[in-house]
């Protein structure tokens, strides 16, 4: 059984300007856990898409909310929990980003969450009281 390494936790305010902080926290995790560069890029993408969704749709412009992120590292994977008290949003519900449609029918809807699913090995969601709790696992090569 893999031993649990130390955990990284941080909080983001509900503002897209916090993406910079997200990048910095991930860079710190990358150094601490010696994560491959490509994995860090992909984790960054996954968290950015989830966070952007939460900020854009979750809070009705109320500036007081926060998103908390917890990261754990085992030998071959990173597990991340992202939690907020915004509107209910379940990223595991499939959306169709219309991959095969012609150009005129394409827009950006559904693409962010679609990308999330391409880059995680497991994604679960639950609603606890007034909180969205998203948990994901990414295997590190």
């Amino acid at each position, binding site marked *: 059984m893999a031993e649990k390494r130390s955990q990284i936790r941080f909080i983001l305010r509900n503002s897209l300007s916090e993406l910079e902080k997200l*990048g910095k926290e991930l860079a710190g995790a990358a150094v601490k856990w010696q994560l491959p560069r490509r994995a860090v*890029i992909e984790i960054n993408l996954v968290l*950015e*898409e989830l966070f*952007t969704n939460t900020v854009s749709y979750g809070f009705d412009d109320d500036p007081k909310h926060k998103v908390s992120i917890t990261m754990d590292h085992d030998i071959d994977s990173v597990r991340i929990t992202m939690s907020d008290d915004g509107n209910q949003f379940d990223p595991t519900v499939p959306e169709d980003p219309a991959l095969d449609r012609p*150009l005129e029918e*394409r827009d950006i809807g559904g693409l962010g969450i*679609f*990308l999330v699913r391409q880059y995680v090995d497991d994604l679960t969601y639950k609603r606890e009281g007034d909180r969205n709790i998203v948990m994901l696992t990414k295997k590190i090569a």
Partner: protein
Amino acid sequence: MNIDKRIERGVVILALDGRLDSNTAPLLEPEIDSVDAGDDGHHLLVDFNNVEYISSAGLRVVLKAVKGRQASAKSFAISSLQDHVREVFEISGFDAYITIYPDIARAIESIV
């Protein structure tokens, strides 16, 4: 993200340096819009040589540029995609709509 703009043989080249994400994509959009696509305008090439990260916000700006120039006199293309960025374009199916060149030199040769 920095955007370096220059003109080469009638092609406006926007060379990006940095991340193309939800924060920086709004910097690129007006730069693209400012390049006239009409008969007296310019072909447009966005170069990704120094971009190692793109999110759906970046894809959105590129998609908008492709759609905007579909019926115009001047073309739109991108170049120099790095591994991860190329993969995101392919996974999302955008590589079917967008002309992608391996580098600026070959892009200019083909466009002009």
